[in-house]
Structure formats: C-alpha cells, structure tokens
C-alpha cells in the first residue's frame, strides 16, 4: 500500500482503551510455523480465542486461512496456567490431593486416583480390596460425568441445544451422588493414598442402582437425537481424520486414539485397581473422524454402566476401606479416644506428613480423556521434589494441527469438541 492507513483516513491516535486490538507479538517468531504466504498477505492470520464460545475454556488458536480453509493452525495454551505442580511441591503429600482435583475439573476422581497411586507406589502402600472396588465405582461415575459434559457441550457447539439440557439433567444426578459420598459436588478429594476417604453412606448404593436402571434409556435418548441425525452426520463424518499411525506418533490416547481404530485401553492393557476382574468391551472406531470419536464415547458410557453393575455385586459388605498401615494412613476417628498411638499417628500425619524415598515413579491410568500419568519424585522428606502430571488434553491439543489442517474453519469447532479438551487439564 505504501501509505499507512491512518494517514489515508485521517484517524489519529486516541488516549485510553480502544476497541482496536493490535497484534503485539513478534511476527518474526512465526517464521517457519506458518507458511510464507502469510507474510505477503496472501493468506490471513486469524486469532480464535482465548475468549471464544466454542474453545471449551480459554484455548487460543492462531489460524492461517486461505479463504475459509485452514492452512496452518497454531494452538496457544497457558491462559489457565495455575502453577499446580509447583504448589504441590510446597505441600506435604496428602495436602496435594485437593490441588489435583482442580487440574481436570471434569474428572476429579481420576486425578485423585493417579496421584494417590503414584504415592502408593512410591512408599509401597497396600490398598484393600474393598477400597479398590469403591475406587472403580468412583472412577466410572466420573467417566460418565465427564462424557456427559463433553456430549452436551460438543452438541451445543454444533448447534444441538437440547442435548445439552438432557446431559446436564443426568449430570446433576451424578453430582448428587458425589455429594453423598464426599460432601462436594465437583471437587471430591475422595480417593486418598491408601484407599478412600470414608465408607459409602447407606443411601448411596440404592441411589446408584436407580441411576444404573434409568441411565441406559437416557443414552438411547441422546442417540435418538444425534447418532442417526443427518445434520449431525453431515457435520461430523469425514471431518478431522486422524490416522492411527499419526495418532500414536503424536501421543494421542483414550477415545481419540480408539476412534482411529487402535485398541488400547489402560484398563485392559495394564490393569490397575482390580480392573482385570471386570468384564467389559473397549469400543474402537474405524475412520478416526469426529463421528467415530463421538460414537466411541457414547459406547464407553454404556460400558461404564456395565462395569458399575458388576462393581455393585463385587463390593464386599465388610472390610477396611483404607489401608491399615498407620505410618501413611490416618487412624479412624473411633480409635483416637482409646489409643495413644493413634493420637500420635494422627498428629504426626497431619502436621509433618510422611516421608518418601528420594526416588521417582510414574503411573498412568485411563482417565475419561486418555492416559493420565503422574510422575512423582520424592526428596527423602515429607514433600515431593517434583510432581508432573501427563495430561491427555495437553497432548491432544498439540495434535490439533494434524487433525485440522485442510479443513474449513467451521469444522475446527467440531474437531476441538471431538478431542474433548479441558483447559485446566492442559495448562495445570
């Protein structure tokens, strides 16, 4: 153009905040990341987010567009970086549990579980059988809960409002159950090192049974609305295809990987917490597109119902719900009035915590989103040296360019929804 825009139009600078947001980053940083055509103005750079209704929180995506087609896609995260890993380092092990809830806030029990399992491995702590089954009940309820939010928001992004209302109706029921067992709707902190926080209250199991009786019919309702819906199929089939080899190379796990046709579920492959005793199938997709990922999750909810049915039968009526190893696990309240040792253990554990060896462990579980890993390095003292959470959303967002390049910008909304990201999970 030669002339600046301001000189042509006669607009001069104004003081104070203006509505015109300017690109303040260093454009040279983007060389090599977007195509050269972006610098000549042939393609357009478009900023989507961090405040965008369909980015599931605060994801920002820098898009290079040729017309409506995505040439390159650069996700930018960190808008929800909370410093959880650093904060856990400043706390004793047990006090880190409430912080893990808040990383992946749609699946709090999975986070509790992986962190507790890492500590249990680090100090070689046993978990009683009853606690393992109770954990599975919590984990599978969490999976249904998380998938319901995903289904509701994913459908909402693609224009199906009523599914959102139905999903949140069922979710309220699950949250009520969480409140019964843990006292909190969302941030349960229920799974602790050595077992769970407390036994199931008597009203929980009947409520769970009632839920399992009506929930499969509710899944039928969602399927009636979406699965065969021509509009839904048009928006999702053939969109965002992720080939299996690429999915593996980029580290995708969970339904994102299974939608591509790879049969890999940590509950089956590397069973933990007595999952090997349960009989369930692992739904696997074929084409690796948005629709297959959607359908995998729908089927997963049905499998979770199956697991929960079995878990109710397997749950022992009696037995400890957390480890009896008093060096690491609190004594029950009833012992405190009778035993001096219990008082000492109680005091020691709540004030200075327990010590772990100066070693590192890595454990991984199948969270609703994929492989959720936890790397804990002890110091020999009562605080961890390093806690790192390998979170599936983080990996899946990094693979977003692989899925979205070459698609239309409207399809990006479908793709972001289909990989089920939670930004708190990603940014930590």
């Amino acid at each position, binding site marked *: 153009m030669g002339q600046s825009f301001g000189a042509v139009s006669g607009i001069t600078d104004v003081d104070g905040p203006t509505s015109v947001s300017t690109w303040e980053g260093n454009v040279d940083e983007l060389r090599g990341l977007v195509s050269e055509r972006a610098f000549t103005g042939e393609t357009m750079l478009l900023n989507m987010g*961090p405040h965008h209704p369909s980015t599931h*929180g*605060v994801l920002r995506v820098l898009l290079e567009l040729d017309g409506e087609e995505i040439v390159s896609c650069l996700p930018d995260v960190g*808008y*929800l*970086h*909370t410093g959880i890993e650093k904060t856990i380092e400043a706390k004793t092990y047990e006090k880190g549990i409430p912080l893990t809830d*808040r990383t992946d806030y749609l699946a709090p029990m999975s986070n509790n579980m992986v962190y507790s399992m890492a500590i249990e491995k680090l100090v070689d702590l046993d978990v009683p059988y009853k606690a393992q089954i109770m954990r599975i009940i919590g984990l599978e309820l969490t999976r249904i809960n998380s998938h319901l939010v995903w289904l509701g928001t994913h459908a909402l992004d693609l224009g199906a409002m009523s599914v959102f209302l139905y999903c*949140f109706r069922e979710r309220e029921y699950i949250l009520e159950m969480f409140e019964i067992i843990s006292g909190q709707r969302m941030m349960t902190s229920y799974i602790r090192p050595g077992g769970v926080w407390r036994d199931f209250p008597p009203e929980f199991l009947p409520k769970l049974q009632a839920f399992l009786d009506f929930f499969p019919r509710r899944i039928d309702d969602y399927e009636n609305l979406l699965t065969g819906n021509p509009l839904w199929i048009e928006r999702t089939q053939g969109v965002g295809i992720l080939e299996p080899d690429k999915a593996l190379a980029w580290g995708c796990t969970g339904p994102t990987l299974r939608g591509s046709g790879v049969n890999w579920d940590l509950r089956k492959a590397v069973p933990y917490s007595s999952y090997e005793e349960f009989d369930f199938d692992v739904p696997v997709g074929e084409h690796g597109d948005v629709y297959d990922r959607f359908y995998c999750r729908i089927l997963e909810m049905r499998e979770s119902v199956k697991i929960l049915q079995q878990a109710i039968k397997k749950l022992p009526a009696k037995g400890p719900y957390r480890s009896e190893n008093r060096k690491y696990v609190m004594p029950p309240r009833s012992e405190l009035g009778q035993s001096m040792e219990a008082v000492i253990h109680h005091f020691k554990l709540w004030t200075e915590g327990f010590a772990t060896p100066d070693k590192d462990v890595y454990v991984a579980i199948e969270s609703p989103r994929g492989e959720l890993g936890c790397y804990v390095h002890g110091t020999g003292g009562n605080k961890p040296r390093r806690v790192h959470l390998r979170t599936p959303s983080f990996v899946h967002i990094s693979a977003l360019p692989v899925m979205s390049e070459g698609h239309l910008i409207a399809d990006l909304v479908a793709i972001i929804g289909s990989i089920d990201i939670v930004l708190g999970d990603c940014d930590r």
Partner: protein
Amino acid sequence: MGIVSSKLGNLGVVTTTLDEAVNWARTGAMWPLLFGLACCAIEMMSTQASHYDMSRFGMELNRASPRQSDLIIIAGRVSRKMAPVIRQLYDQMASPKWVIAMGDCASCSGVYNNYALVQGVDEVIPVDVYIAGCPPRPEQLIHGILTLHEKIRGDRIAEWAT
C-alpha cells in the same frame, strides 16, 4: 412498581419512578458474557442448564460478544496471561456493566497463592459481588446474582447520569 391500576380500574396506566422502571428493566434482562475460565464455569453451565435454569431471572441468553452483554461472571482462576484479556473484554463492554467474581479463585486466588495467578480479579477490574466457594454451588451463584439485582435496584439515576 406501584400497581395502582387495580385501584383505579383497568385504565392501562402504571405510575412509577424513572429509577424503578430503569432498574427493573436492567435486572429483568441482564445478559451475561459467555466467559468461562475454569471449574466454576462448569457450575455456571449447570446453573444455566435444565436443573437450575437461570432463565427464571431473564439470564438465559449468554452473549459471546462483550458489546452485547452487561454482566461478566469471572468464573474461575485468572492467570497472569489471562488478565490483560479480561481487562480488554471489560473495557469493550458498554456501560452500565457489572462484574461478579465467582468462586474463591476469582475473589482472592483461593488455594493457589503462587506465581501464576492474579491474586483476585480485583487487581484488574472492579468487582460488584464476590461469591465464595470452590466451586460455588449453583444456588450460591443464583444468590450472588440476586444480590447484584438488589444492588442495582438501589441505584439512582441522579448518581450516574451527571
């Protein structure tokens, strides 16, 4: 609003003060900005969904554009990277505008007293109502919104129209 029409017969006349009429309109159709940050955003969605149904207060319409909304609910933790964005969104909203800091993190950073988070969103924008809880239950959010309505009903035109 003074319901005098019943006393005077059906004349189709209602008398009120301008203050009350304006504030009634403002509280009755307050459009929040669709802006979720973290865990509290999920509870905010629950509040809008079928079980709690925020449309009872004229708030079912979440606008994605700050230009069309008069309430911003800061639902979640505010990182240092996010703070300039929030300030810009707030500046883009047309007056009159209100802010609800939902949850401990938005109010005072809650359990995270660390390098990454702004220690309360009131470091960046003025807040009208703080809601405690981590995350607050939907009932608490509704209570916060009703508290804000009460605050708005106390506004006097003479104070802001000069």
